[in-house]
């Protein structure tokens, strides 16, 4: 059981059935969770915590579109190079600037409605990127291309988090 995919009995692929992952996750937790070992010896309890922690981490990685992509690329030995490689297509960056300006405007005007709309638009855009990632990783095995798309997806995720944080601030 070397990889997170093997842990859940799944093929290593970007496209993945959320329900199958959930089922496998629950199945494993049901057998190894610390609550099942409250009456056991120290050694069993420790092993249970370690396994349960690992299963939680694996589930978190595979459930999340960005983490799943990074993990698959890592398995292929592809480094996203987040520290060194910051170059993104100019067109993409220009679009990011636009989105950010829109976010700042909505934040300044405390316009929750506008933020919710940006949230929805972003969700659609992320969905498209994920479909493209599945195509590149699973079918074309174009990992360099997938790395670029993953970086784009990370940009959008970051923006999404900022929208969430802004909404939270407005509500507070």
């Amino acid at each position: 059981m070397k990889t997170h995919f093997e842990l859940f009995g799944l093929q290593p692929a970007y496209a993945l059935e959320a329900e199958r992952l959930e089922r496998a996750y629950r199945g494993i937790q049901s057998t190894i969770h610390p609550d099942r070992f409250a009456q056991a010896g120290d050694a069993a309890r420790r092993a249970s915590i370690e396994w349960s922690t690992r299963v939680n981490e694996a589930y978190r990685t595979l459930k999340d579109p960005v983490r799943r992509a990074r993990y698959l690329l890592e398995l292929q030995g592809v480094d996203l190079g987040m520290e060194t490689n910051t170059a993104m297509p100019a067109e993409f960056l220009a679009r990011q600037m636009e989105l950010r300006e829109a976010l700042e405007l909505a934040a300044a005007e405390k316009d929750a409605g506008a933020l919710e709309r940006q949230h929805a638009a972003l969700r659609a855009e992320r969905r498209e990127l994920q479909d493209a990632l599945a195509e590149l990783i699973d079918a074309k095995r174009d990992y360099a291309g997938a790395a670029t798309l993953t970086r784009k997806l990370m940009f959008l995720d970051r923006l999404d988090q900022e929208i969430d944080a802004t909404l939270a601030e407005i509500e507070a």
Partner: protein
Amino acid sequence: MALFQIAEPGQPPAPRGGCRAVGIDLGTTHSLVAVMRGGAATVLTDGEGRALLPSIVRYLPDGRTEVGYAAQARQAEDPRNTVVSIKRYMGRGLKDVAHAENAPYDFVDAPGMVQLRTSAGVKSPVEISADILGLLRRRAELALGGELAGAVVTVPAYFDDAQRQATKDAARLAGLEVLRLLNEPTAAAIAYGLENAAEGVYAVFDLGGGTFDISILRLAKGVFEVVATNGDSALGGDDWDQRVFCWLAEAAKLPPLDARDMRLLLVKSREAREHLTYHGEARITAKLSNGDVVDETLDSETFCRITQHLVQKTIGPTRRALRDAGLAVEDVKGVVMVGGATRMPQVQRAAGELFRRDPLNNLDPDKVVALGAAMQAGALAGDRGEGEDWLLLDVIPLSLGIETMGGLVERIVPRNSTIPAARAQEFTTFKDGQTGMSFHVVQGERELVSDCRSLARFELKGIPPMVAGAARVRVTFQVDADGLLSVSAREATTGAESSVAVKPSYGLSDGAIERMLRDSVAHAKDDMRARALREHRVEGERLAAAVRSALAADGAMLGAEERARIEERLAALERVLAGTDHRAIKTAVDALNRATEEFAAQRMDASVRRALAGRSIANLDA
């Protein structure tokens, strides 16, 4: 292949039809204890048939302590020594506590946690809570006829690490073995979900006397998975009472009040608030110590107006929880209302409007948390009934991080991470030849350290001198199933290792707990040695039973040599268990634990593989 378990001759069999592990709801206003009986959770009552215990403690000058109704009856008379709503002070410094100026106590601003000066001496919130828990423990021991196997104690989901640690310390001080700290809304979800065989996404809206929690759970095939939680650990019915009190002071043009009058009017304010749940208006009458009479009438319209901002405070956390869960209100199948303060019509209305559906009120909001805690206690003690094979997956409410340069927070474990969780992050040195690093662990969602709660500080020493940026210090956060954090740091570049585990500075050190245990009247008479023997025996018997059943089920996994070693140590433990030397038992327990380390890991691996193969292994229990 099912194995029948047979108790060894001379050993007491496991209690049948009754579980010795209890669930305790340690509430701001009331506390309760419940237990599994005949397959159902039941709240245990006092001699007069009352289930709720007012969370009120009075300290008398002669050293006696009154808890519950007796203390409640004298609170206006002796406000300084009668402590109410102590839960609001758990794990908190004086500056963190709202309305401290309206509380009639003699505060002592101790480092870490505020303390109160009473006629029985200075008391910490941990000790005061322990007095409440101690009474519940005795109530349960009386009902169950003997010592308890342990307790699940509930905490607000939005309690931070310091507040959780303080609660656990209080339970230990009360002589309880804490099986688990359980989040209150999660406890309610278990009680509701098991009762109603619920499936799908549910929200638990929990407004108690002093805390507000909102939890979003996914219920599927016996798994209760908390997807997100949020809240306000300083919002509850008490705040509504405060508003009524302020309104009253203004309406009756009251001069500054002494402690007794203040407590009297707070009690009256609370009664008025509760009355308004069922009536259009409430009359408040009181005679002050100077002979003046207060007589005012509060109508529900005014009440709603002066408390509107409090109701509003529940909306933000609810929206944030839904967003964190990645769900919309339409996805929520039901809203379970918990906590006495949710009886207020305006709170019901607000929850209904937020989720666009009528809230579920078919469980007693005062009891549902204790019932859920009892169910979890039963499950942890291995006392689950047929078809009750359920599991709980909970999360941490607030992000955990570390201070970096410039007073910024580097988030290590984000909020709503499923527990147990471990996460590591590498840090490096800032200066050439730096041999030490100091870490500041914080909890909260803000970017600046100053806006987060400080949990602990610790230092790592002995880093070999290197150029700046060359050292690789790996900091690991481990959050256990109680939601409690431990942190360790390790420098690994040169193979030199150093690690340190920390306990939050708001909690008490183990030494302080031991001291309090020794000092407390309840335990002074107790023979500490007898107690240690009892505790080690229970642990030894539990371990021996677990190892025996593990050998019976999976002994085939072992090589002859390893098996012989385990059996030899098992026999050694069984030999000393009958004796009275608690140290010998402890040594034998440790030895058997060490010997079974590898075996336990192998069994766990095997069970993961079996789970994948889809085979049922419901009986794996060691």
